[in-house]
């Protein structure tokens, strides 16, 4: 017999539905195809990076440099294009730069054994700085019309942005890999107990390196999407996205302590935040309110499971649950029992 367990990711799914319903009730301009396309387009870059960040946080690591990596990829694309490289090649260049950012983070964390929180605060500054080195004070604009129309336009005859196709494909892959392949299992196992994972023959360091690399690559993909959507590459784009992305992932039920989370919870969370933003704007709240709502949602996402847990105290022979989850997992951890 299976108990139906309430888990936060299901809560987020319900929350998304409720948010859509409230938005529909409160604003005539909310529930239509055009608004949906705006919401989808707005969350694309966040969502693409969040997919990779989900893996990373589940494995017990974190990457604060993603927004800078996104921008460095965008800046590299612009730099190459301005230098006369064909646009298609420049896109590949941007993707490779994103990948390189991720690999560098991964190298510092897995090979040198440095804590990812500290490392990626440093590379946050480094990658942003390199964007300035590449572009100086000159943003790149006048990108090829065709590509901009892909970046901003919609699929002919529909309301769906082209970038949504990319997002759906990437999300499907991410969901499949996380929940239906051994690589996903490895990710969870490493997050629950990295040492036991190593003793179970899981290539812990290689997996983590791959996860950092993938996060960098997704930042690169997001960087390309970002460049096309805003028809320009500049050194100061996407500032501060990193905390928003991490907030979205955590809101989606991924535990900062590692080992817990679902892909669809994260997707629902990213969409929820887009929907709420839209609903708040359309009902006349200011941008400041969105900050408050984001913060409140984040807190609720960690408080709510505590409350449900307290409500149905499961019988446990261990007595007091002493697994206190803190930021420490970002550094090193040695659970004591």
């Amino acid at each position: 017999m299976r108990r139906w367990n309430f888990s936060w990711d299901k809560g987020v799914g319900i929350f998304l539905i409720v948010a859509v319903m409230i938005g529909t009730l409160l604003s005539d301009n909310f529930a239509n195809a055009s608004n949906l396309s705006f919401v989808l387009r707005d969350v694309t870059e966040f969502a693409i990076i969040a997919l990779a960040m989900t893996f990373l946080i589940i494995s017990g690591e974190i990457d604060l440099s993603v927004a800078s990596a996104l921008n460095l990829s965008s800046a590299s694309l612009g730099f190459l294009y301005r230098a006369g490289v064909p646009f298609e090649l420049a896109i590949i260049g941007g993707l490779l730069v994103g990948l390189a950012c991720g690999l560098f983070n991964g190298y510092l964390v897995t090979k040198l054994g440095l804590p990812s929180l500290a490392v990626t605060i440093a590379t946050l500054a480094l990658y942003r700085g390199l964007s300035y080195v590449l572009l100086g004070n000159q943003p790149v604009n006048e990108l090829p019309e065709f590509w901009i129309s892909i970046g901003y336009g919609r699929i002919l005859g529909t309301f769906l942005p082209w970038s949504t196709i990319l997002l759906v494909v990437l999300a499907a892959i991410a969901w499949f890999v996380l929940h239906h392949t051994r690589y996903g299992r490895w990710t969870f196992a490493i997050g629950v107990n990295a040492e036991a994972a190593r003793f179970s023959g899981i290539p812990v360091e290689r997996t983590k390196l791959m996860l950092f690399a993938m996060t960098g690559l997704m930042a690169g993909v997001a960087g390309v999407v970002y460049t096309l959507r805003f028809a320009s590459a500049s050194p100061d784009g996407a500032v501060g996205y990193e905390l928003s992305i991490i907030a979205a992932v955590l809101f989606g039920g991924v535990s900062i302590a590692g080992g817990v989370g679902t892909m669809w919870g994260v997707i629902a969370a990213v969409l929820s935040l887009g929907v709420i933003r839209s609903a708040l704007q359309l009902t006349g709240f200011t941008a400041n309110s969105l900050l408050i709502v984001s913060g409140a949602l984040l807190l609720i996402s960690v408080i709510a499971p505590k409350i449900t847990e307290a409500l149905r105290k499961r019988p446990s022979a261990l007595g007091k649950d002493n697994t206190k989850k803190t930021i420490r997992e970002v550094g090193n951890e040695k659970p004591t029992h």
Partner: protein
Amino acid sequence: MKNRLIKSGLRTFALSAVVALGIAGCASTETVTEEPAESTETSEAAESYRIAIMPKAINIGYFAAWDEGAQKACAELGATCDYIGPNEATGPAQVQFINQVIQEGYDALVISAADQNAIVPALQEAAAAGITIVTSDADVAAESADARLVTILPSAADRIGTAEVDWIAEEVGEEGCVAILSASATAANQNVWIAAMGPYLEETYPNMSWCGGDLESATFYGDDDATKSVEQFNAILSQYPDVAGIIAPTTVGVLAAAQEKKAKGATVAVTGLGLPSEMAPYIEDGTITKVGLWNPIDLGYVAVYAAVLSMQGEFDGSVGSTFTAGDASYEVVEGGIAYLGDPFTFTIDNIATFKEIY
């Protein structure tokens, strides 16, 4: 003060309640759109236009004055104007609000572009949806000028740049090296002005130079952030100990420079573009002799007129066309630009009056 805090607190609570309970009722408790302008009855407006007034960011004081002018015009024209925008001055953040403008079917959008490129596709989409777009205070890139009807700018770019050079020349006795404390490296306005300063200083004042030998070495970026601007001010002093004057063509930069100059008792002359209300203490105590700025109230005011007149069919934004706002008339010049005129300067003589205005 107390009321505001309580209001903020209540709003936070209300928002949290919406989130926590997922109930609908609260959203109607309060909204923070601008108070509708006092509806002075107007004769000329047969229909009431809805116009979105979008600053680079709603939290910047300068734009409160800009919005004041816009609201005044709206009241005169019988239009309904909503002051909406992001809380961070970036293009991508602004795009989300341009989307809202499209979604809510506004008739016109008056916007100060936070990013000269990033918002262009969104503006084009808005234009395609039939929205009249006027940029004011900050324009989109010249290549994308067709994304808007017309732009209202304070003065010709070269004039703002050269005026600032003239101010600093006067203060340093037309001698010595000068550095620039700008906003962000990608700030379009500042970059255009700085470009105009470069050759002008070299040609007009033979005994003056750019610190470090060229414009690029003399330019520092404070990112319109108080902390960073102060840091960069100090970087200028330590890198060029002989610097005679600093031009800060940004309200954040000039304020930071004035404060730091006063704190350190530095002798370097400082001028630039500053809000009189913010700069008044420094002008009054002699830290700063002169700063300049156009009147942001006028910028907002004229932009709303341009938008409404165009919707009424009385103005088409083409080069050479003219329109009247209040008691002044404006002509559109090459590039689809209408200029307000020379920047105002503020000194000890007039600061007392202007600090009360904006």
